[in-house]
């Protein structure tokens, strides 16, 4: 779905409150910032990741992002252990998430540690699209991507 220039792929899961997308791949989940989140954050200036192997609780910080005007956390949509970060990708191009938030701009890969009890708030498909439409209207946002 594309709504006010914001791309919300229906095949992903979302933690809408935290603006995180999730792609489940067997026992690993790939996480990143949604188009809405990267637009609100603005062009990345720097990112620091928690260490691989670190166990992080629901809502706690997986990485800290600095944009031109703001510093804030990339939060965990469920309790998990970090198994890989995209540090190399962001070292080569700090704007990855601003350009390709759902592919090259992934942030971390994690193993969920309590998913059964912490997935009720995750949405996908049409439900995600409808809820994001509401959120985009509420935020009065038009998504923007970096092209260089």
């Amino acid at each position, binding site marked *: 779905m594309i709504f006010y220039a914001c791309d919300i792929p229906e095949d992903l899961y979302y933690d809408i409150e935290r603006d995180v997308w999730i792609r489940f791949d067997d026992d690993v989940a790939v996480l990143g910032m949604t188009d809405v989140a990267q637009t*609100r954050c*603005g062009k990345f*200036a*720097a*990112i*620091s990741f928690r260490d691989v192997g670190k166990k992080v609780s629901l809502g706690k910080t997986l990485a*800290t992002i*600095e*944009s*031109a*005007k*703001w*510093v*804030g*956390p990339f939060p965990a949509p469920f309790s998990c252990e970090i198994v890989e970060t995209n540090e190399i990708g962001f*070292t*080569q*191009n*700090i704007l990855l998430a601003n350009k390709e938030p759902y592919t090259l701009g992934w942030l971390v890969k994690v193993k969920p540690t309590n998913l059964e009890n912490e997935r009720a708030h995750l949405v996908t498909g049409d439900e995600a699209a409808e809820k994001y439409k509401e959120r985009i209207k*509420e*935020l*009065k*946002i038009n998504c923007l991507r970096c092209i260089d």
Partner: protein
Amino acid sequence: MSQKIRLLYMEGVSPLRSQTVYHAVAYAMKEDTPNTIIMVSPNAPYVCIGYHQDMQKEVDLDYCAANGLSVYRREVGGGAVYLDNGQLFTQWIFHKDDLPSSLEERFKLYIDPLVQTYQELGINANHRPINDVHVSGKKIGGTGAAQMGIAEVVVGSLMYTFDKKTMSKVLKVPSQKMRDKIFESLEAYMTTMTEQLGSTPDRAMVKDLYTKKVSEALGAEVYEGEWTAEEEAMAQEIDARFTSDEWLYQKGRLQQPGVKIHEDVHIVEAAFKAQGGLIRVIARLREGRIDDVSISGDFTLLPSFALGALEQSLRGLSATPETLKSKIEEAYYRLSIQSPGVTPADFTIAIMNAVTPPQPA
């Protein structure tokens, strides 16, 4: 928005506490914590670096040690800055839902009372979006934003004075020439209340004025309060973290070409090895144009006066390779410049390396 905003007024705290206090109030915030504004100034000068900066790369630590300046890392972004009692930091720690969701609107809400305070003092300040306050093209204080715990934080300052000379000395820069250029640019593009008014306004009066403007802007009562035992305990915890080597010396990740003077003005430096020698460039960029440029190096360029003329001819130009090369070639022709092993294309590359540093492969 809650109708009451707590004000914590803390003039003359330690340099460390002037930073940790707003982190502490933010991280201790709970659902029932009031939105809080802290007005704080340090009782001694210090240097503060941005969240992702590398202290050893950005700060002249020898100078700081010799002059008794502590260095602290904040959890707000941006660059290294020299701070002292001449600035009154105005720190907002608010619940997410009580601030606009867009950063542009959030900065506007935060900056409007600063601008109105300056204006009522007789200073013709205005909001230079997204997050600067300007007086006739000069910056009077910067701002930043962060999320800490459940709190949204916006920080900035009311600038009574600013020690530009010391600011230019605390930064680690590759040459004295670059340092001189930074000082010169701070003089040209930064200002303070004292400079604008000819004298320093009364601090109690400024506090009252700012509080009134905040109250009007937010439509909320501002009351002077105390911080809680829990917030103070959190501050002590953060004091310990902010003074730990692990926090201070963490590797920087912020790739920040040059030194930002304000939103539109940056000083950049680069070198390029041409066949006929090394070309060094220090340039001041203003809104994408070359405001000033110094070229030096170990190349030969004749006639001897031509280098200055070449620099002069580049001022005001749009910083694009085509424009620069064309202008340099014109100067070569006009002044009959000879520079064995160094071509107009080489100067163009050197300048463009400063303007847009080469990206890692």
